[in-house]
């Protein structure tokens, strides 16, 4: 394995990443750089490799070849999900996955930045500091009323927020959000956009999204993926006028 020195300053650095499933190349020599503090949106048609890219970054899928570095030093292709999560990379799935049998409070409690060791978890203590942090997060995602409810009883949009709240409370450096507004009402979508912009003030966020109105409302740099590789990158106006992008995606 070659040990090229990744770009300095880049928070997330993917170079030449290839992943194939039984002959089908989900990622084909993908290279992508996300700078610290950036808000990045990634768009692309179905099968372009958006979710696989997130799988690679979060350790769910191992790349067949290529390099994946976090903060220039941590080789994500060699770590497992829990280790990557503990580096400060959080992920929100396409479908909301909260722990439905736990209460809203307990969901946040598990996500709280805290020791993850099995012994420490077994012998964990309750402190007012932790309670306060959970209460603050509840207020920020607007679920203070629902604190004692089982998460399974929340509405679809509330589950999405709870999940974002869980990423928030862990103090992640990098958040990967997979279609955060899928299935939301227009009003919920607007609120989510505000929440993301608010979150982006003090962390790096990568958003995968189909909803072009939502992407536009975020006003961030856009990367277009196609057939497992980057097709175009730039402002939303730049990519919307890009000839190839129109052919494969926007102008269908």
């Amino acid at each position, binding site marked *: 394995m070659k040990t090229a020195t990744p770009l300095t300053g880049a928070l997330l650095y993917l170079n030449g990443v290839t992943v194939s499933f039984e002959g089908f190349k989900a990622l084909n020599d993908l290279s992508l750089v996300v700078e610290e503090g950036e808000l990045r949106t990634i768009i692309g048609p179905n099968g372009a490799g958006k979710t696989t890219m997130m799988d690679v970054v979060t350790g769910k899928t191992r790349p067949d070849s290529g390099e994946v570095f976090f903060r220039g030093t941590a080789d994500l292709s060699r770590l497992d999900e829990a280790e990557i*999560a503990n580096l400060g990379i959080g992920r929100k799935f396409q479908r909301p996955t909260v722990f439905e049998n736990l209460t809203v409070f307990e969901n946040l409690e598990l996500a709280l930045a805290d020791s*993850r060791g099995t012994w420490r*978890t*077994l012998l*964990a203590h309750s*402190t007012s500091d932790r309670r306060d942090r959970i209460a603050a997060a509840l207020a920020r995602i607007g679920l203070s009323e629902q604190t004692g409810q089982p998460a399974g009883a929340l509405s679809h949009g509330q589950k999405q927020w709870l999940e974002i709240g869980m990423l928030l409370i862990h103090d992640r450096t990098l958040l990967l959000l997979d279609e955060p507004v899928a299935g939301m009402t227009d009003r919920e979508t607007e609120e989510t956009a505000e929440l993301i912009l608010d979150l982006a003030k003090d962390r790096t966020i990568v958003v995968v999204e189909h909803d072009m109105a939502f992407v536009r409302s975020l006003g961030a740099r856009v990367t277009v993926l196609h057939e497992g590789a980057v097709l175009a990158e730039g402002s939303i106006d730049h990519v919307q006028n890009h000839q190839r992008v129109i052919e494969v995606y926007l102008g269908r």
Partner: protein
Amino acid sequence: MPALPGGQQKGAWSPRFWASFLACGVALAVAVPAFNHWVPPDSPAALPDYLVPLLGKYLCYALLALSLDLIWGYAGILSLGHGAFFALGGYCMGMYLMRQVGTRGVYGNPLLPDFMVFLNWKELPWFWWGFDHFAYAATMVVLVPGLLALVFGWLAFRSRVTGVYLSIITQAMTYALMLAFFRNDMGFGGNNGMTDYKDILGWDVHQSSTRLGLYIASVLALGLGYLCCRFITASKLGRVLLALRDAESRVRFLGYSVTDAKLFVFTVSAVLAGIAGALYVPQVGIINPSEFSPGNSIEIAIWVSVGGRGTLVGAIVGAVIVNSAKTWLTGAAPETWLFVLGTLFILTTLVFPRGVVGLLRRPSRIRTRAAARVPAGERA
């Protein structure tokens, strides 16, 4: 029911809990011996001698069921090989009891148990060394099932064997052990197993006072086992387990080591099962390889289901109910028992998934998963 962030769940150790826990403990540990020992035998209130080891046996089964509920009800790990840990604990105790027989065996050999003399063994195999000391045997009761669970669990959980795959390989594990223990040259008595015990810690195992002592030890073991399970399930780790039962990979993305958490409860559970086996053997007077049979292990799951999964108390209640029914039916109408057991398996999964305890409790307090909310990933 909101929980405190970190730490034990609110209400888990309330005075109300302690009151009912101690009440049950006293009823089992004091009332039973009292009715057996101090009430005159001809009184209708007297508890006949033969019932004491029978009740003791039920308590051992209850501890075994508790150990399965800890991993199945909370972490979603359905082990179909838990009988193996129970039997291993039982064998460790059986080896101690065999060594206590000394020269009183049929062949009067001071060193070798009868079956070894019979098979022409010349010396005690190394893995029997030390079993004449109770402390060593007791340590092995914990270590042997614990280590097996640790190694097996590490292999399985590390490579993310879950769901029915895990159930099948645990079944294969107990099946392989059963075949191994049936072999005479393993040095554990082959298919006859070990029996004809004389005494334990110097007391005659046939004496009613010894049996009462073993019974009380079973009550204590069950009580401590229950507290241990309750401590785990009411801790933050308990919430992690519930979370990983429902969405395992999500827990990984939160930064928890699913492997470690599962391995921890699996090992604790195996140790509890081993202790249950060790208490079971002197009370029933025999241990043989059929304890390893896959059918026995699956039956444990039905005790837990009948009582109510994920409730701990349910496991105890279920084990006692099902085994009392078994004792009664196999005496009264033996051919109907398997019909009843089979029907229980179907009914508890189909009609009463929350079991006896679930039916008695208010629905909101039960943390079992409703059928409709199953993640599709489990179907693969």
